[in-house]
């Protein structure tokens, strides 16, 4: 079938890269078999209150999502192709009803070299509550409250593993705008973010080509990474603007140079973690860090249960002027892992903003129901009364989220 569509494309004289890809695939098609996996699931959100803004007058939301993964490999795995589309349908928020190509990439491996071409996701970093160093992919902000869901990024990545660590070079082709909740969405600022009015410092706008380099290495108990990124900042500056006579926020994406360091020391029961960034732009130059530890009590009271204690501190040189929610914040958490056949885990986190005295509490619990289904429960509770605090807009969005996922 793939070959047929390739032939068609050639007949219609489609763009050169497609033909080249088809040529590559066509030459080695006999050995290829597709491996299909992925998941579909639905999610129920129950809010304690109606939201504080207009159009948020509901207390429940239903949502459906699917993310299949198609994987081919040939030449004994030296070549592979991955395709991971994603789609979500949301009852209330039309901005959250969206699709994305999380991955569509060809990987070629030769000895210690790796070349990845296409849309991919890449993660950097070590801390648990905030991810400062991780800059390659844009945040799919409507997907989750913790900002851990990412949009696919087009790139060419060259990677080499040596005795002195792993060296990565990235050419990032084109820019993805951050997604924001629509008028009917929850967990959003008071003023709507009008993504149609996004503006850029660079004249190339969202076609600007970004570059990144990273070196990472494991030596004894240490895992260290040093990275540099130059290009369009993934985090927009939200400016006040107008849309059809109404006041809105418009995202402005500046050009930045960000240097990042991540470090973990693994010593017996301790994981010591540090992420440090220095971000330089025409508008601002600042440093920020997230640092802390995780200590785990293994096999508590003769059982197979592990209990971990997490403590992290988030700091931003800009203080209260910081756009980040983690400018002077303390994070406390506990992770309980039963190590049972159902992989039952529970994570509870509490954060306290030392500048604004706001507090938030998260709970994440999950387990496997059977060979195919998993269940996850997530709770988010925010207490922020200082209107200067960016998290004040979430004050009435306390919620419980129940997710059922089927894996195939």
């Amino acid at each position, binding site marked *: 079938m793939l070959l047929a569509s390739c032939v068609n494309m050639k007949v219609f004289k489609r763009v050169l890269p497609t033909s080249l890809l088809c040529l590559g695939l066509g030459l080695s098609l006999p050995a290829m078999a597709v491996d299909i996996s992925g998941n579909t699931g639905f999610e129920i959100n129950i809010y304690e209150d109606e939201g504080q803004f207009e159009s948020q007058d509901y207390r429940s939301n239903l949502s459906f999502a699917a993310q299949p993964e198609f994987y081919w490999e040939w030449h004994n795995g030296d070549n592979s192709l991955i395709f991971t589309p994603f789609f979500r349908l949301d009852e209330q928020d039309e901005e959250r009803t969206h699709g994305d190509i999380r991955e569509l990439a060809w990987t070629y*491996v030769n000895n210690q070299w790796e070349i990845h071409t296409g849309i991919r996701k890449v993660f950097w970093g070590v801390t648990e509550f905030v991810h400062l160093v991780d800059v390659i992919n844009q945040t799919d902000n409507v997907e989750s409250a913790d900002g851990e869901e990412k949009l696919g990024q087009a790139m060419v990545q060259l990677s080499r593993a040596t005795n002195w660590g*792993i060296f990565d070079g990235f050419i990032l082709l084109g820019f993805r705008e951050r997604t924001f909740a629509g008028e009917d969405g929850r967990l959003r600022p008071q003023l709507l973010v009008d993504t149609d009015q996004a503006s850029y410092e660079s004249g190339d706008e969202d076609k600007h080509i970004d570059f990144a380099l990273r070196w*990472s290495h494991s030596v004894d108990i240490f895992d260290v990474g040093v990275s540099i990124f130059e290009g369009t900042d993934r985090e927009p500056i939200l400016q006040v603007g107008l849309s059809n006579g109404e006041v809105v926020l418009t995202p402005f994406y500046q050009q930045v140079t960000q240097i990042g360091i991540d470090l973990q020391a*693994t010593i017996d029961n301790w994981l010591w973690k540090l992420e440090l960034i220095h971000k330089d732009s025409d508008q601002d130059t600042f440093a920020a860090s997230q640092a802390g530890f995780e200590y785990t009590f293994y096999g508590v009271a003769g059982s*197979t249960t*592990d209990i971990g204690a997490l403590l992290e501190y988030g700091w931003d040189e800009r203080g209260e002027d910081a756009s980040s929610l983690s400018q002077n914040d303390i994070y406390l958490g506990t992770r309980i892992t039963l190590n049972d*056949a159902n992989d039952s885990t529970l994570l509870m986190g509490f954060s306290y903003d030392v500048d604004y005295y706001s507090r938030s509490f998260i709970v994440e619990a999950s387990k*496997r129901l059977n*060979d195919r289904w998993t269940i996850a429960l997530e709770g988010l509770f925010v207490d922020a009364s200082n209107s200067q605090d960016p998290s004040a807009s979430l004050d009435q969005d306390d919620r419980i989220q129940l997710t059922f996922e089927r894996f195939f």
Partner: protein
Amino acid sequence: MQPVKLSLWIGLMSAILLLSYTAHAKSPEEKGLEIAKESKQRDIGWGDSETTLKMILRNAAGQESIREVRTKTLEVVNDGDKSLNIFDHPRDVKGTAFLSFSNPVGADDQWLYLPALKRVKRIASRNKSGPFMGSEFAYEDLTSFEVEKYTYKFIREEACAGGNCFVVEQYPVDKYSGYTRRVVWIDTTEYRTWKTEFYDRRDSLLKTLTVTDFNQYLDKYWRATEMKMVNHQSKKETDLIWDEYLFNTGLSVADFNQNTLRRAK
């Protein structure tokens, strides 16, 4: 002449002492160590291997759940082995991969790859005694055998599933081991471990591991094809069933790093 006579005497006495020492039966500790060294010696030189492991977890009520893991292992002579495990089943952990550098003494280095977040996490290997994938096998039960990991005591010889067996007690050197001791039954002809009893930190019998059968590869190396772990305290069981092993598949150190962990499929 006196001093010469004295030194002669001392020399003679020492010689007699030394002779009687070596002529004496070895101590149980020495014999236990000798058996461990011999069984390790017989398993040196296999190079690298790949296989698929199926685990059947059974709770006290008899309910079963299945795990499937593909394993690539590289022998590193004079150091610990390197291994890469890729999980295929259950489907919600498909694509999760586990990289382990075993160290003869001290903690192993371990990294876990979480495919949903594309994240590699270094994990604390202090967690030796923790269950592997919810099974009755602890991480330390599945790592490569290194002579330095235990001290030994030979107990007796007796009949066993493999014919005639040495019965040896092994005391873990690592203070983070979940056991005070293991008792192993090793056959006297091929040095294969047919049965292992695990005693917990209170020195009561926790688990028994029994091997049903072995296959021989490259005319030399024995690998278990099926084994059963029974937990006497929780009444849970785990069966391990291996596919045929492939040896000399061309694996090298370059196949065991965070890049290969990330792209493991």
